[in-house]
C-alpha cells in the first residue's frame, strides 16, 4: 500500500513509520507544521512542533530510508483546533484539543489530502489497534493500558478508520523505545510530550487569561449563596478542589469542589463531593467508529470520559440524535463539552460530546 506517515519528531511516530516500511508498504514521511511561528527548541516535555521536532522527524525518515516532506497545516490547525479550544472554554466547556486535532487535522485534512494524491491511508504512532471484520476495519484499544489512546481517536468516523494505520497498538511503550534504539533512531530517548502542544508554557490558565481576558465573577454554592470571587471562570475545571480561595467552611466540614461553570452569569458553582456524582450522561453529535448502533436499542458496554480515565460499566443507547449512557456506579466530575466514548469490550463504538449529566 501507499501510505503517508505523520511524523511528529517523537519516538512513537518514528517507530510506526519504520514498521510500516518494514511491512512492505510504500511509505512517505510527512511532518505537520501546526504553528506559523514555531519555537526553535523544545523545553523538556513541553510543547511540540518546534523547528527541532521537524529536524528530528527528518532525521528519523533518513534513518528509516523514506522520503520526507513538511506539510503546512497551520491555518487548519489554528481555525479548527486552537480557535475551537478558546471558543469552547469561553462557552464554559472543557474541550480536549488532541481529539479535535485527530478528527480535523490528522484524519481529515491529512487523510483527505493523502487519498486525493493517490495514497491509501495515514500511519501514526498512536497506541490503538484496528482489526478487519465483515464491517470493515474496526477500532480497538491498544494492548498497553497505560498508553492506550483509543479515547482520543474515538472521533474518527467509519471511513476515517478505514484509512488509519496504527502499527504500535500491539506493543508497550518501553518496547517501542527499545526498538527505536535498535533501529538507530536518535529519538529513542526523547521525552514524551504531555501538555497541550500550542500552550508552550504548560500553564493553561494563564494562556487562556491572556487570550480571553478575565472577567471577575462570583463563586456560589448550590443554593446561589456567594462564597467568593474568581478572576475568570474558564480557568476552573469541574471536579477541581484546590485553589478556590474560599474561607468559609462547609457545614459538614467537607471540602468543596467545582460542580459546574455557568458562562452566561459568569459564575462558578461549588459544592460537596457527593454533588459531583453523575449517574446518567447525555451526549450529542455522536461519531461512530464502526457500524452505528441500532436506534433505541440498549447495549451493555463501557463509558470512558477522560483520555486515561477508567472504563466504567454502563448501558448506552441512541435515539438518532442523542446518546444516553447509564452508569452502574456513579462517576465524579464531568463537564459539558467533554467527550464520552462508548466501548464494546475493547472495541471503540463511538464518541459524543457531553451535553448534560444527572
Amino acid at each position: 500500500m501507499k501510505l503517508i506517515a505523520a511524523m511528529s519528531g517523537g519516538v512513537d511516530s518514528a517507530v510506526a513509520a519504520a514498521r510500516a516500511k518494514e511491512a512492505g508498504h510504500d511509505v512517505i514521511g510527512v511532518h505537520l507544521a501546526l504553528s506559523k511561528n514555531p519555537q526553535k527548541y523544545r523545553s523538556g516535555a513541553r510543547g511540540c512542533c518546534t523547528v527541532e521536532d521537524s529536524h528530528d522527524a527528518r532525521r528519523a525518515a533518513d534513518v528509516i530510508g523514506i522520503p520526507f516532506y513538511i506539510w503546512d497545516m497551520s491555518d487548519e490547525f489554528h481555525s479548527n483546533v486552537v480557535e475551537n479550544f478558546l471558543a469552547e472554554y469561553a462557552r464554559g466547556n472543557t474541550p480536549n484539543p488532541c481529539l479535535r486535532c485527530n478528527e480535523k487535522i490528522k484524519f481529515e485534512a491529512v487523510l483527505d489530502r493523502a487519498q486525493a494524491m493517490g495514497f491509501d491511508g495515514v500511519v501514526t504512532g498512536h497506541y490503538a489497534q484496528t482489526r478487519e471484520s465483515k464491517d470493515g476495519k474496526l477500532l480497538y484499544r491498544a494492548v498497553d493500558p497505560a498508553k492506550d489512546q483509543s479515547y482520543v481517536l474515538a472521533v474518527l468516523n467509519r471511513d476515517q478508520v478505514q484509512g488509519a494505520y496504527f502499527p504500535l497498538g500491539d506493543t508497550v511503550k518501553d518496547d517501542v523505545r527499545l526498538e527505536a534504539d535498535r533501529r538507530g533512531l536518535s529519538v529513542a530517548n526523547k521525552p514524551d510530550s504531555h501538555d497541550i502542544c500550542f500552550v508552550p508554557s504548560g500553564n493553561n490558565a494563564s494562556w487562556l487569561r491572556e487570550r480571553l481576558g478575565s472577567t471577575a465573577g462570583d463563586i456560589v454554592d448550590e443554593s446561589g449563596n456567594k462564597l467568593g470571587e474568581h478572576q475568570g471562570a474558564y480557568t476552573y475545571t469541574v471536579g477541581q478542589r484546590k485553589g478556590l480561595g474560599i474561607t468559609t467552611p462547609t457545614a459538614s466540614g467537607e471540602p468543596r469542589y467545582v460542580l459546574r461553570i455557568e458562562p452566561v452569569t459568569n459564575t462558578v458553582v461549588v459544592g460537596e463531593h457527593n454533588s459531583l456524582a453523575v449517574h446518567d450522561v447525555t451526549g450529542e453529535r455522536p461519531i461512530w467508529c464502526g457500524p452505528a448502533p441500532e436506534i433505541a436499542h440498549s447495549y451493555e458496554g463501557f463509558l470512558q470520559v477522560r483520555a486515561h480515565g477508567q472504563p466504567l460499566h454502563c448501558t448506552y443507547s441512541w435515539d438518532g440524535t442523542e446518546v444516553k449512557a447509564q452508569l452502574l456506579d456513579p462517576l465524579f466530575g464531568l463537564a459539558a463539552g467533554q467527550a464520552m466514548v462508548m466501548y464494546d469490550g475493547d472495541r471503540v463504538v463511538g464518541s459524543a460530546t457531553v451535553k448534560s449529566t444527572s
Partner: protein
Amino acid sequence: MQRVYLDHAATTPMVAEAISALVDQSAKLGNPSSLHTSGREVRKDVEEAREAIAKFAECAPSEIIFTGSGTEANNAAIKGLFWSARESNPKRKVIVTSPFEHHAVMDPIDWLAVHEGAEVVHVGVSSDGVVDLDDVKRIIEARADEIALISIMHSNNEIGTVQPISEIVQIASEKQIAVHSDAVQSFGKVEFSFKNLGLTAATLSAHKIGGPLGIGILILKRGLEITPVLHGGGQERDIRSGTLNAPAIVSFAAAVKKVHSEFLERNNRVRHLKESLKATLNEKVSDIRFNGRSENSLPGILNVTFPGAPGDALLLLLDAENISTSTGSACSAGVAQPSHVLLSLGLSERDAKSSLRFSLGHTSTDSDVAYLGSVIGKVVERARAAGLK
C-alpha cells in the same frame, strides 16, 4: 530508474574538469598566504584561477574577492557598501532594491533596516518580472543624496527574467551612487560583463555553473575600500579575511573555463529544451500560466502556475516519480512559503502557492522533458484533487 533533475537553478552537477581540479588541488600542501615555497605554489594556483575567472567576468583580477558563498558575497557587498556610505555621510542610509531579490540580498538589507537604521525603498516591477526603470529614475532623482546603495539582481532565480542593470547603472552613475548586482544566476548563462555594466559590485557563485559548493565571489571595483564583515588575517584586500579555499577556487576556475568554451552551444541547447518543456506542459496540462517574460530571460528557468494544484503536492508527487523540482523557498522550519517573487508580480497567494519552478541545465536532455511529459498530466490531476480539500 535514474532521477530526472529539473532543479539546476538550486545547484547544477559539477563538470568533470571541476571535480578533478578540486581533487588534485586538495592533494597540494600549502597555505596560500605562507611566504615559503609551498605557500607560494598554492598561491600561484589561486592567482591563475583568479585571472581566468576575471577574464570571463570581464573585470580586473584584483577586483575579485573570494568568499565562502554567494550569500556571503552579497552580505559583504551590501553591508560593506552601506556602512562605508553612511560613514562618509550620515544622511546616506537609503537602500534601493527590488521586491524580488533572493533571500541572500533581501535578508541582509532587512537586517540593516532593523539593526542599523537603513531605510529600504523598493522599486516597482512589471507583472512580467522586470524592474520599472522610470521608477528607478524617480527614486534616484528624489533621494539622490540619501541613497547609500542600489542592489538589484542581474537575473531572477525563480522566474529567470534578466534586469536592465546597464540602464540602472547609467542613471545611478550620474549621481555617483554605488550599484551592486547579484549575478549568481546570470554568470555563465547570459552575457555578463562587469566592466561593460559599470557596476560597483557584483556577486557570483560557483555551484550554479558546474563548480563546487561553498565558494563565491564578490567583484568589487578597484580601489574601493568597504567596511568588512569578517575581520582576521587580512586576506582578499582586507575585505574578506580567512585562509583562501584553494581547491574550491581552482575548481571554480575550471568550471568557468568549461562554460567559456561552450557558452553559446550550451545555452542555446538549454533554451531550446526550455521551449520544448513549455510546449510539452501546454500540451499535457490545461489551464496553466507561465510567470516572467520569456524574451531576455535565463535559458533554463521556467516558472509555471498550475491553478488549484498546491506546489508542495506537485513537488511530492513529481519526486515520487523521480523528478526533482522546486517550489521556491522554505522558512527555517521547512514550511514552503508562497514565493515573494511571484507575489511581487501580483499573483494571489493561492496562485503563488500553486506554482513550480523547473530549471534545466548542462546535463538536461530531450528525454528528461519527454519523461516529465509522460507523468505531469496525472500528477497535476492528483495535486488538483488534493488542492480542493
